[in-house]
């Protein structure tokens, strides 16, 4: 407590960081020192929100961790960070422990792993109060319950007895925030607090942080890669790249009058949800305008894929003598058609069944019911051998670029693998010629062929993954969150590449993503899924300009737009709560538990897809 009371002239900032550097000396003589943060200076005033944005490796998280004394022991720190008259960088752990958790708190990216799964939530919260405010456990638990109330956690007292795994991601992040605010800190450091959450939940958390800041007057240091989040929440922004500050100023100044090339390029690389004219995404470091390959130059041909009432289910838990097998209906009757050269975007929150749908279409999981017809052949009727041959025509690109490449195979072997499978008689020389050609098409040097996946960046790995998917010249490619793990600038390159490839090869794409802006950018048509069912399907512009389903409307309104003036003047439909468990979906319309329009009919009758305006919608009220 004494720390908070320390005399501080009113005009001094809350935190003054000067010349902050973080470096990791190489262990061996031939290893270079890594400079994670270089000479960073900034101030935070009481009650303000400063955003630090940058791509991975820019040093934004390292800066925050150094303030909290959480860097690994091998890190070297220099500079100063004056908070309440003390230099945070030079305090020992004992003195730092009086400040962290009390006057400065921190919340982290992944609420799944940042809470201790082995300890009840109440105990995790009460420890903080017992430590910093000397409360008894009883009083501490009472205060904890009040704080959970304040962060809008329903039935707060019951939550204290629960364990983290019993709660949803959004609930856990609320609990993280509540724990961080227990001692009424003057500064809250939030490291990517909403990155691991679905958009509707992200919108809830951002609104909550905004409201709490007004109630408590806490200053926030918000670390994020998402320009939209910054535009909505921050007073000032600091842009970082390669450990250095590129620019720092008020939100409006940085977004509208940026003096820095990198900042401008970064902003241009972000696909925007509200963009009417499709364009080629700008690529950072490449300011020359390239020929635009927009959607209209990619014509759609005749239908090549038909999915009819597809159902995919998984058994959940093992059956016991007194327990029937419970099924999780990941995909509960989805039908769709796809033409040659067409891109169908599929969006929805985690657990909506979009990845299961992809795997079902490709027959990678057992299809419980329904038919998938590719180029006139029903895949479910084929024997193993024929199906294997058909796989040449349908390929998939995965989310995690590095994890989806075998670490013990060279790039050449990885990319050539489909050739082994589908053209077993092809000579090695001929295979290598093809591999070389496709790598070059992907913008990768042929010299990479004998290297291993870990030597490449995420974006390069994803190009290798795409090369592998395309080398056997498939007709249908399913991209399962292909850019979610990538930085904005790399994402722009991959999206551009996919669009070019589609145009060249006439590919039909199913593009699965949770980022609605990217999907808008690349898709001809967009399908919104909720709990294994289609909520709405429509042509891209129709869906984004006049969404019919209340869920589509809420999703779109939850996506932050990287434009402060637009973002701060939007009317939001905030969805309450989380996606219900797919093990026990609500009766009738699955969305009714969160729907503002829900009535008795929605609980009784499952809405079928019907035409409304330019969309196909599954809603009684659309």
């Amino acid at each position, binding site marked *: 407590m004494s720390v908070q009371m320390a005399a501080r002239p009113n005009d001094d900032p809350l935190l003054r960081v000067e010349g902050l550097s973080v470096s990791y000396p190489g262990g061996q003589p031939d290893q270079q020192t890594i400079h994670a943060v270089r000479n960073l200076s900034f101030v935070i005033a009481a009650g303000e929100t400063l955003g630090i944005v940058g791509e991975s490796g820019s040093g934004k998280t390292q800066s925050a961790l150094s303030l909290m004394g959480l860097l690994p022991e091998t890190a070297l720190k220099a500079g100063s960070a004056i908070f309440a008259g003390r230099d945070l960088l030079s305090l020992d*752990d004992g003195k730092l422990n009086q400040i*962290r958790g009390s006057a400065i708190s921190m919340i*982290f990216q992944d609420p799944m792993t940042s*809470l201790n799964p082995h300890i009840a939530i109440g105990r995790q919260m009460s*420890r903080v109060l017992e430590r*910093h405010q000397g409360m008894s456990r009883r009083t501490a638990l009472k205060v904890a319950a009040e704080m959970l109330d304040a962060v809008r956690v329903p039935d707060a007292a019951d939550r204290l007895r629960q364990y983290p795994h019993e709660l949803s991601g959004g609930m856990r992040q609320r609990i993280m925030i509540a724990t961080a605010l227990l001692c009424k800190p003057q500064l809250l450091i939030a490291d990517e607090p909403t990155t691991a959450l679905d958009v509707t939940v992200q919108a809830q958390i951002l609104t909550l942080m905004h409201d709490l800041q007004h109630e408590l007057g806490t200053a926030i240091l918000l670390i994020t890669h998402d320009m939209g989040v910054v535009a909505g929440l921050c007073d000032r922004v600091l842009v970082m790249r390669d450990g250095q500050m590129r620019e720092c100023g008020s939100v409006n100044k940085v977004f509208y009058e940026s003096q820095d090339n990198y900042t401008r390029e970064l902003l241009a690389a972000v696909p925007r949800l509200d963009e009417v004219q499709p364009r080629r995404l700008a690529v950072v470091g490449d300011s020359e305008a390239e020929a635009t390959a927009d959607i209209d130059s990619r014509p759609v041909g005749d239908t090549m894929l038909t999915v009819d009432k597809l159902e995919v289910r998984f058994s959940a838990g093992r059956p016991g003598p007194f327990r029937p097998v419970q099924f999780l209906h990941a995909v509960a009757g989805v039908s769709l058609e796809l033409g040659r050269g067409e891109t169908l975007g599929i969006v929805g929150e985690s657990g909506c069944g979009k990845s299961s749908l992809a795997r079902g279409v490709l027959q990678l999981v057992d299809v419980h019911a329904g038919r998938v017809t590719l180029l006139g052949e029903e895949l479910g009727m084929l024997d193993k051998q024929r199906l294997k041959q058909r796989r040449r025509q349908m390929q998939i690109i995965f989310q995690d670029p590095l994890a989806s490449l075998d670490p013990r195979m060279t790039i050449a072997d990885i990319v050539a693998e489909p050739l082994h499978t589908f053209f077993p008689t092809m000579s090695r020389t001929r295979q290598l010629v093809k591999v070389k050609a496709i790598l070059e098409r992907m913008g990768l040097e042929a010299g990479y062929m004998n290297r291993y996946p870990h030597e490449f960046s995420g974006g390069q790995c994803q190009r290798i993954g795409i090369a592998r998917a395309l080398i056997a010249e498939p007709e249908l490619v399913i991209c399962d969150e292909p850019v979610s793990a990538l930085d904005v600038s790399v994402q722009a390159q991959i999206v551009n590449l996919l669009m070019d490839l589609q145009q060249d090869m006439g590919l039909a794409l199913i593009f699965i993503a949770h980022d609605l802006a990217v999907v808008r950018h690349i898709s001809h048509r967009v399908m919104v899924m909720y709990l294994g069912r289609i909520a709405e399907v429509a042509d891209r512009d129709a869906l984004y300009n006049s969404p019919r389903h209340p869920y589509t409307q809420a999703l779109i309104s939850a996506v932050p737009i990287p434009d402060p003036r637009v973002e701060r003047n939007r009317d939001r439909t905030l969805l309450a709560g989380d996606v219900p468990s797919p093990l026990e979906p609500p009766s009738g319309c699955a969305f009714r538990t969160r729907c503002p329009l829900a009535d008795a009919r929605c609980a009784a009758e499952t809405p079928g897809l019907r035409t409304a305006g330019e969309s196909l919608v599954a809603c009684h009220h659309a």
Partner: protein
Amino acid sequence: MDGGAARLDAHAHTAQNRTMLSFAFRRFLSAIPTLLILIALAFALIRVAPGGPFDTEKQIPPEIEARLNEAYHLDEPLYQQFGRYLTGLAQGDFGPSFQYKDFTVTELIAAGFPVSLKLGGLAMLLALLVGISVGTLAALRQNSRTDHVAMAAAMTGISIPNFVLAPLLVLLFAVTLRWLPAGGLGDGSLINLVLPVISLALPQIAYIARLTRGSMIEVLRSDFIRTARAQGLPGREIILGHALKPAMLPIVSYLGPATAGIITGSVVIEQIFGVPGLGRYFVQGALNRDYTLVMGVVVFYGVLIIMFNFLVDLAYRWLDPRVKL
């Protein structure tokens, strides 16, 4: 809303109790075939061994041997004997001992087991206390001298079998230094158990220390420990309040094999130190082809280990609430 939540909570509670009961029941059911296989294997193995319970250096007249065999039903076909044994077992009757003719096997087990339990229990307690402390210390000072010395000692402890270690300890502490008694239970005071307990515990201490170190290091790297540090909790509280419980998971799963290890270890150790425990009866029973005694001890320990593994699963569930029973 509140009432609904309370109902939901109560519902979750009874549901939890029900899964607990059904878990216990499932385990009970699955224990039956395990035990049957164990009994059949032990029965077969001891009968395959050459010789019989009444072979002595002096030839017994054939008619007496026939009478003996008849009295103990050894003249029946094997499957009948097996069936007879199982029937007795189902009624809790381990049968009479062939060697200690005035005792039933049940009486022998009742005499030997308390001694073995004391020995094994103390060894296990010591192994856990010392092993976990040393392992945690080594994890906290990772790659320091403390760490290296502790882990080298642990490696040695694992490598030396206890039938080598025990005589060495006797030589040092009992024969040379004369600090501790060399064997027997003497007046029954604990000092007589010091050397047997240490010999039995040392390999387990070593293994548990290594396990603890590894899992503690991993836990200390996890995100929730970073959160605890960011909350300004001091190191002691982070270790005891946040890290210990998850770090204990591998140790708890090792408790099953550890118990088995201590039981088999005690067979040897009791022999070396002349402790009149169950292990000694077992060894002598095996040497004398005392069929019922050997079978009795095997079944008894089998049940014990199955029960212990059940307890371990419950402890696991307590340590990690995500585990489904």
